[in-house]
């Protein structure tokens, strides 16, 4: 197989390549080699991977091909090569969590979400970059270097799932797990032009995933399309005895949902906060997206949401305290091993009294109730993911300088309120700036109604081609 044809395999969707391997139109080795070839080309440019495991990947691909030749298929992703954010523990493998502190940490268990994907027969390519301990929205990492945006390497990817966003955008992995505590899936999906799903708190097990904030952490996929996200969510969702916070409610057929029409659905457009101080190019893309959805028969309604800045503040208080609590031992024993920005942000949690923290948690129920009342009769809310496209590496490399927190908060301004409310939210690529940087929108759903936002997102992707466009290797 020529390298050009091989590269074409790497450009297929997750659902498409899984089907192609299952039907033996191509081998797992060919697909895995195609991904490794692209990784060899792109990694020096964008730094999306922490570890690349070509020999192990090809051996696993050969084993998958041999099993298929014997008529044995392990599952729906048999022989598909994938890589994930380096915070999902896999027994016997290093999980650095993007940190110096865990640079040599070898996991003794496997994360439930990762195991559920692996059980479908995937091949491990390596591990993906991330913000140190998943606490950073830019894509900078003082230990492993910044991840660069495949659409323009002078710009960041967003974080904390920086490697996941970049690797999926550059077609190095067909999809990747990320995590979203304050915007860490939606941010990189938005800045890198891929589809990313933040799930409802309780929908996907967090067992074996590095913790940051037990109240806010969520696990979800980044992929090349809504359909691919739906496939992965169907695999990883559902109750897990190892994570008692997961719901026992049934897992819907998310792929079937993506095939439903969107005509007649009601989509809410906020009248404040999410439309304030928008870069004109982001505003233009949002408006165009609404027009496409309208053209598909969706009904657009104005919604007046409760004060989102209060939700955002409450999110910060909860996240800061819970993160500081997880890290307290290392804050005492190894403060010098943190990057300056994460050390500063972890120290923030030390300054918040216990009563204030608990008030922020106690308010969560009434805040969610108020939100649901405001969106009564609405199937989803549409909003930008960030007020601007991906900033440059230089302007976002703020470390712990005065004003750093303000930069961070501006990047996550439109995502944090949704984390506080625990709602599902789907980031879909929706357009580009004149400079060629991707711009996305998020579709915010009701609790446990990922099916609805996947349905709307798929409706948008059926009639547009933004999600199919590829960045060129510089």
């Amino acid at each position, binding site marked *: 197989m020529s390298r050009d044809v091989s590269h074409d395999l790497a450009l297929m969707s997750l659902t498409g390549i899984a089907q192609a391997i299952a039907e033996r139109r191509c081998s797992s080795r060919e697909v895995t080699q195609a991904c490794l070839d692209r990784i060899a080309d792109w990694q020096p440019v964008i730094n999306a991977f922490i570890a690349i495991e070509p020999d192990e990947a090809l051996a696993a691909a050969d084993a998958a091909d041999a099993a298929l030749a014997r008529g044995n298929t392990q599952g729906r992703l048999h022989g598909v090569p994938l890589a994930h954010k380096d915070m999902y523990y896999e027994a016997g493998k290093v999980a650095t969590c993007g940190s110096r502190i865990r640079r040599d940490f070898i996991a003794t268990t496997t994360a439930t979400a990762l195991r559920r994907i692996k059980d479908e027969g995937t091949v491990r390519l390596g591990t993906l970059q991330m913000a140190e301990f998943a606490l950073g929205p830019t894509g900078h990492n003082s230990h492993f270097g910044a991840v660069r945006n495949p659409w323009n390497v002078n710009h960041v990817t967003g974080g904390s799932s920086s490697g996941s966003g970049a690797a999926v955008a550059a077609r190095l992995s067909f999809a990747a797990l990320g995590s979203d505590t304050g915007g860490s899936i939606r941010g990189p999906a938005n800045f890198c032009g891929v589809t990313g799903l933040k799930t409802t708190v309780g929908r996907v097990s967090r067992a074996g995933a590095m913790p940051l904030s037990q109240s806010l952490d969520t696990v979800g996929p980044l992929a090349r399309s809504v359909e691919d996200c739906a496939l992965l969510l169907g695999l990883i969702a559902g109750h897990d005895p190892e994570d008692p916070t997961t719901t026992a409610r049934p897992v819907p057929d998310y792929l079937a949902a993506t095939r439903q029409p969107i005509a007649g659905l009601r989509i809410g457009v906020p009248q404040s906060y999410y439309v304030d101080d928008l870069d004109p190019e982001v505003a233009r893309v949002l408006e165009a997206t609404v027009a496409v959805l309208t053209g598909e028969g969706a009904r657009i309604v104005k919604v007046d949401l409760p004060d989102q800045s209060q939700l955002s503040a*409450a999110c910060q208080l909860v996240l800061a305290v819970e993160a500081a609590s997880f890290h307290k031992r290392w804050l005492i024993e190894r403060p010098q091993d943190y990057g300056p920005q994460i050390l500063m942000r972890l120290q*923030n949690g030390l300054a918040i009294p216990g009563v204030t923290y608990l*008030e*922020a948690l*106690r308010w969560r*129920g009434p805040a969610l109730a108020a939100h649901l009342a405001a969106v009564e009769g609405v199937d989803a809310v549409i909003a930008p993911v960030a007020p601007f496209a991906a900033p440059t590496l230089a302007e976002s490399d703020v470390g712990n300088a*005065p004003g750093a927190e303000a930069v961070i908060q501006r990047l996550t301004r439109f995502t944090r309120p949704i984390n506080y409310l625990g709602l599902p939210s789907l980031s879909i690529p929706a357009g580009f700036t004149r400079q060629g940087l991707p711009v996305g929108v998020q579709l915010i759903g*009701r609790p*446990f109604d990922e099916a609805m936002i996947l349905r709307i997102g798929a409706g948008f992707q059926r009639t547009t081609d933004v999600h199919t466009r590829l960045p060129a290797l510089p």
Partner: protein
Amino acid sequence: MTRPSAKEIKAIADVAGVPVNAEEAERIAASIGPAFDGFAKIAGTLPFELEPATFTAVQASAAGGKATP
């Protein structure tokens, strides 16, 4: 509710067992201060019986299910 000063933060961090120096305390005060400001209207206003678990109950109710996972 008012945002804590750097001096207060230094004292709180000491009590928490993770001392910070004066410069770090200043940085923390500037960094987390806006979150205190943003939450000020809520702090001290919540009903007596309200528990954090109310969130799970509201979430489940909205999704048409029971409060327990």
